[in-house]
């Protein structure tokens, strides 16, 4: 275990909640001040630990929503039925409270500029969170360099049940408006707003053929969402000829989850 002896322990840090931003009826973003945060890469996550007065503890993992460029660390949390940690983070925690966390964790489902592109992001529901960190990192790192943006185009295909459940909806729209090299395509699977012109079904082969760059362009693919979505999208992309080594996945939720 010599490798472990050399590695520094990922220590617990006591973050302070600076702000709480509602995103959708079931999600909100916690903006945190983390002392001596060592920095992270887009796509990584943190472990959060809660401690009750009698010492009972609960731990869960949350994807980081903020890009490495931000001074604050943001987590976007979804309230889950019976989720002891998610309910606390969604209903109880408020500005000024402290929150224990450690990270960053995960070195595979990560993207930054040197990884290259084109960048294809496919998300379902709150699976958008680590993908949003990538979108935000790309936007911050490339700044006004239009040549670099054209060399590193990005597409996001994002499946939600309803329009009011689309996390970061306005921010995505603003980013697309000022960046012709970023495309965001929504699909809604349950309920459509009036005049909706986007996709209206679960992500399928035809949709991926339309949205994904051809395998010859070697897009870097990141898929995050409930297991059925991730399984189906990853399998379909491999069938379409994409190199499995360029298709990275992150799954969450119960096996029967759907978006």
């Amino acid at each position: 275990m010599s490798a472990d002896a050399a590695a520094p322990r990922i220590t617990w840090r006591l973050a302070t909640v600076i702000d709480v931003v509602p995103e959708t009826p079931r999600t909100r973003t916690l903006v945190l001040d983390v002392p001596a945060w060592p920095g992270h890469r887009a796509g990584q996550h943190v472990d959060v630990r809660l401690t009750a007065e009698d010492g009972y503890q609960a731990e869960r993992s949350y994807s980081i929503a903020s890009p490495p460029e931000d001074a604050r660390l943001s987590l976007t949390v979804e309230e889950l039925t019976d989720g002891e940690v998610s309910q606390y983070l969604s209903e109880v925690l408020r500005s000024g409270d402290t929150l224990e966390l450690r990270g960053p964790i995960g070195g595979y489902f990560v993207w930054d500029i040197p990884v290259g592109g084109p960048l294809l992001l496919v998300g379902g529901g709150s699976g958008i969170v680590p993908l949003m960190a990538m979108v935000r990192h790309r936007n911050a790192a490339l700044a006004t360099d239009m040549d670099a943006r054209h060399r590193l185009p990005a597409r996001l295909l994002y499946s939600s049940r309803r329009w009011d459940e689309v996390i970061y909806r306005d921010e995505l729209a603003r980013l697309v408006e000022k960046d012709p090299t970023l495309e965001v395509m929504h699909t809604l699977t349950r309920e459509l707003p009036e005049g909706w012109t986007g996709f209206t079904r679960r992500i399928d082969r035809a949709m991926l053929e339309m949205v994904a760059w051809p395998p010859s362009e070697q897009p870097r693919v990141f898929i995050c969402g409930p297991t059925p979505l991730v399984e189906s999208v990853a399998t379909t992309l491999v069938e379409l000829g994409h190199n499995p080594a360029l298709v990275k996945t992150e799954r969450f939720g119960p096996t029967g989850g759907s978006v």
Partner: protein
Amino acid sequence: MAPFSRGFRGHRPDAAAAGRLPPGQYETRDFPVLSAGPTPHTPLANWSFTMQGADGKTARWSWEEFTALPHQTTTNDIHCVTKWSKFGTTWEGISIDTLLAEAAAKGIKPSPYVMARSDGGYTTNVPLADLTNGKAWIAFMYDGKPLPAEHGGPARLLVPHLYFWKSAKWVRELRLMENDAPGFWESLGYHNYGDPWREQRYAGDE
């Protein structure tokens, strides 16, 4: 002592569950799926299992040969590093002891470390001592049915006493090694050994 989280009570597991839960884990009744990339779908006709000695000698079994080896049913609690634990999972598979005995008959000698290798390129390292004496299997049935691909079928390594990333899905090869070397997650910041009872999640955890 960790600082209190204002207003946090939590859903405490009952006493029976509490004793079975390693630190930082919670019980789930689902069977979540976690893998870093697409699920491989290797046809059984192309599937084989290989045991390789440190000297390069190999023993190989086709699917038919492999599943004809004596197998066992085993029921275990499993613990994923992403915090869920699942109690009483029932598997059917071939004990690593059986495979080592079969391989020994073909001239393959034991070595202290093992690298498991899977379809799709996944790897994980485990000390041989953690795979022997009835502690590990190559499982191909789950809950009385063929192991589904998303859970590692047709066959996965099962090492229930270590975090579940050590139980390599889609396993195709065990390679014996004189010296330890890190596998996939072990090279990406996860713990080299991964004992859930000592909460060895990440490199640097004691």
